[in-house]
């Protein structure tokens, strides 16, 4: 028993200890304010130097707690979920590595070591998406995630370069205090802001770089919950929130951020409406919710964005884990059209899923309502148009969530697997997360009663309409290729790059350059051939040539002396 689970237990214990540390850190920050720990100098070149250090303030302590808390629950869950996988040791190793890099990301006191974590979580994401490496599609999905993240990372790096050129440092304190001295709209600051945002679009799956996230669902479900819902994808949000001092100086960039977020929310929600794979629905939902957060950041609602990030971490992790429980019970099946009626077969899973679903749709007592409310409020103050669009997205959210719930848990079971409830080790973390998802909102209990009434009635109507459509009589409206940007990217970017690559390799390398080299060689050989004819064997001619050459050299020397 222990032997089988020791890797998982050890990994979970590590994260649990970190969670305890995070609580104490949070309390200390709460009581005495932010503090920094200097570790050691990383490298210094000229007067530019980077050191390793930890920064604990409210933001990083919150992230610290969230990452380790959710991470711990997911670790526990994974012990059950991965119990018969032969490579589970490696799995927990990767998970712990992920926690390490995520903490590097959120606790760093400078942008460069933050970038270390940033790349590190991308690496772990790659490893975990491609965890089942015998499936080639999974490997391709992993590679896609990594490469698309690298596109964003290039933006991040360039942003760092401009930052170093402008401020001569990557230290948060120095950068932000020096940025404060610059005027609003200063070109360097705008450039930094826009380039860092490119990085965030990669990591936080914003338009146009979000297509890796749905593919990333190839990884084991706890990975989807931890990395691709709760923590890693919020890194972009964290980074923008962290550097709000810079963004505050670039209002035009903030507008871009707002509308990118809104567009992402719309696209994600629309695509989620037509998916058949339970995890893909949740993935697009994550894209859409991240769009909400980014839009909030764009509207200057940093607190709202972070609040939603925390509640989203709870309820989306919950949803993913519950979906994992469903998949586990269904024996690996992910197609919702083959599920149905699971509420009786998996009652605990159903209950917690429902909590998560309600929180995601923004139903009042649950956390999602409060955070989404905060976001909408923040956006309304900046752009009523964006506000209107996002209201529409909220409606779409409620629809796809309802569709998901009804397809999976209501109606008859549409396949002949023997469904069983998941073991306790999986359901206990679910219950914990459900409690958190339900109650996390009360820490920020500011709301309008009007909103409550409107939301509840709208939700009731949506659920009533969708019930008949997906629970009573299943309407098969799946459309997995719907609005697939992948096709576009493949046609517009990937394929041309490969064509250019092959063209360079065949036309340029093998034809032009090789022919040029060959021609050069041929010319030399041919001139040798023609010079050879001068070597006639006639001694008289040689003597004449010697004399003439001496004459030429001597006269040449007198004309052009060295």
């Amino acid at each position, binding site marked *: 028993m222990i032997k089988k689970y020791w890797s998982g237990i050890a990994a979970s214990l590590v994260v649990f200890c970190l969670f305890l540390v995070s609580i104490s850190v949070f309390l200390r920050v709460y009581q005495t304010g932010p503090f920094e720990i200097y570790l050691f*100098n*990383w*490298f*210094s*070149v*000229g007067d*530019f130097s980077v050191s390793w250090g930890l920064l604990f303030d409210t933001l990083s302590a919150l992230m610290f707690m969230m990452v380790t808390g959710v991470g711990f629950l997911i670790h526990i869950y994974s012990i059950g979920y991965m119990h018969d996988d032969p490579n589970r040791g490696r799995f927990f190793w990767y998970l712990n590595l992920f926690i390490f890099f995520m903490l590097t990301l959120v606790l760093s006191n400078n942008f*460069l070591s933050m*970038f*270390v974590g940033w*790349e*590190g979580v991308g*690496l772990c994401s*790659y490893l975990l998406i*491609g965890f089942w*490496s*015998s499936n*080639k599609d999974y*490997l*391709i999905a992993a*590679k896609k995630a*990594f*490469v698309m993240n*690298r*596109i964003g*990372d*290039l933006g991040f*790096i*360039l942003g*760092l*370069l*401009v930052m*170093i*050129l402008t401020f001569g440092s990557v230290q948060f304190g120095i950068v932000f205090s020096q940025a404060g001295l610059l005027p609003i709209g200063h070109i360097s600051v705008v*450039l930094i802001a826009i380039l860092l945002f490119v990085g965030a679009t990669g990591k936080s799956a914003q338009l146009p770089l979000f297509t890796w996230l749905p593919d990333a669902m190839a990884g084991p479900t706890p990975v989807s919950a931890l990395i691709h819902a709760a923590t890693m994808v919020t890194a972009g949000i964290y980074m923008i929130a962290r550097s709000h001092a810079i963004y505050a100086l670039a209002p035009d960039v903030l507008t871009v951020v707002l509308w990118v977020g809104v567009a992402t929310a719309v696209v994600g929600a629309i695509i989620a409406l037509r998916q058949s794979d339970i995890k893909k629905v949740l993935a697009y939902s994550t894209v859409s919710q991240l769009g909400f957060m980014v839009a909030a950041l764009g509207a200057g609602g940093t607190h709202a964005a972070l609040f939603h990030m925390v509640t989203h971490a709870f309820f989306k992790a919950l949803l993913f884990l519950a979906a994992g429980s469903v998949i586990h019970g269904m024996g690996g099946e992910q197609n919702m059209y083959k599920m149905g009626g699971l509420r009786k077969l998996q009652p605990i899973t159903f209950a917690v899923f429902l909590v998560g679903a309600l929180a995601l749709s923004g139903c009042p007592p649950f956390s999602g309502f409060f955070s989404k409310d905060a976001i909408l409020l923040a956006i309304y103050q900046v752009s009523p148009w964006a506000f209107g669009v996002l209201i529409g997205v909220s409606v779409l959210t409620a629809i796809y969530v309802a569709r998901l719930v009804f397809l999976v848990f209501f109606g008859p079971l549409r396949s002949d697997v023997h469904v069983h409830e998941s073991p306790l080790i999986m359901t206990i973390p679910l219950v914990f997360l459900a409690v958190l998802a339900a109650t996390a909102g009360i820490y920020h209990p500011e709301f309008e009663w009007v909103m409550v009434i409107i939301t509840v009635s709208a939700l009731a109507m949506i659920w009533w309409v969708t019930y008949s459509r997906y629970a009573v009589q299943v309407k098969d409206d799946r459309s997995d290729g719907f609005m697939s940007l992948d096709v576009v990217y493949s046609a517009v970017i990937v394929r041309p*790059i*490969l064509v*250019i*690559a*092959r063209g*360079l*390799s*065949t036309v*340029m*390398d093998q034809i032009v*350059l*090789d022919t040029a*080299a060959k021609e050069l*060689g041929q010319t030399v050989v041919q001139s040798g051939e023609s010079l050879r004819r001068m070597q006639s064997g006639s001694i008289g001619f040689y003597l004449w040539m010697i004399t003439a050459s001496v004459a030429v050299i001597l006269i040449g020397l007198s004309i052009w002396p*060295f």
Partner: protein
Amino acid sequence: MALLALLALPLIGVFGLLIFKSRWIAVAVSALTVVMTVIIGRYPELLSFFTSISLPSFAVTPLGLLMLILTSVIVLAIVLASDDSPGFLAIILGIQAALFGVFCAQNGLLFYMFWELTLIPAFFMILGWGTGDKVRIAIRFLLYNLVGSFALLTVILYLFLQTHSFAFTDWMAAPLPLASQVWVLIGLFVAFGIKLPLVPFHRWQPETYECLPRSGSMLFSGLLSKLGVYGMLMLMVPLVPHALLVYRPIVLGIVVMSVLYASLVALAETGFKRIVATVSIAHGSLLAAGIFALTPMGIQGSIAQIVAHSLVVAALFLCEPRIRSHFYLGALFLVVLGSIGLPLTIGFIGEFLILLGISQFSLVYAGLAGISVILGAWAMLTLYQSVQSSTEGTYEFSFSEDIVVITLIAAIYILGIFPSVVLI
């Protein structure tokens, strides 16, 4: 005296190998060179301790010392990991001797002599131990490199005529007019660009690496290509600073184009060695870009990247056989990460500082060069995944190969966390 011993040691190893035909001689000699170079690095006063035999044309500069240590370490790795015949190991030690000469020479004539001396054993290595169409490949290798050598020789003779001296110090002291600096710049660019190689002088490189046995590829990619970079840092930058500054947009443009070109071509290549070779062109070009940005950051980054690239590419070629064991897949993956410049590897320090150096000149060039970060990751991950999912796998690694791989990987990562050792 110590320097003389250092220069002579590989040669003694060559003769020892030819006489006794035991690979342990090679191991012992290369281990001894590592110890000696490290001691020289630690106690530079040893160089002037025995003044009775002085070599006025040889000296150890900080960059030269780094190259010496790198050379001896990589040669030790190659020798330890190889199971090749004594003749082959003798060739490797012969090349090492020539490399030591290049890295110590403070005199154009000696520099050129040792530079050429690397070619002869290299040529015979291809001819004797290559696979495939080796005669054609060897001749092509030789012709390309001789064109470079010819350019180098022309420049050296020109500088001699200008200064009546072969000493580097005299060359640096002589102020050349801009017009002649441009010609020197072109000559040296061709000479070092072929060695590195840069696009469009690169066509000899992929097939040469492909044709060579594993140890040979490690040596060529890890050390011989560094001759070009060393020359750029040692000769080009101090000799023609004015011309480089004036024509920086063009020179840097060519080099950045070379980075992009090679990164793209790597996507179209097939076969482990060819992909690694092509990515290696991209990395080498990035290195050159760091130098030609002519900023302190870029040059520092290039120096870090020299170390990074040598370690990474040697480790990559070492892992070249298709292996299915988890240990080697893991090792290969760690090396691939080093190759794509993930943070915490020395490759990241190099690439970041190079990009920083370029961006101090122009952010657009930095962005263009940075695209190789994406394309390189794409190519290397494709490569890794093809190894991961291939079903071949017969080669068993020996214990000493294990040690070498682990050491190289450890070096890549430890230097990534504590890079101040290589930032000279």
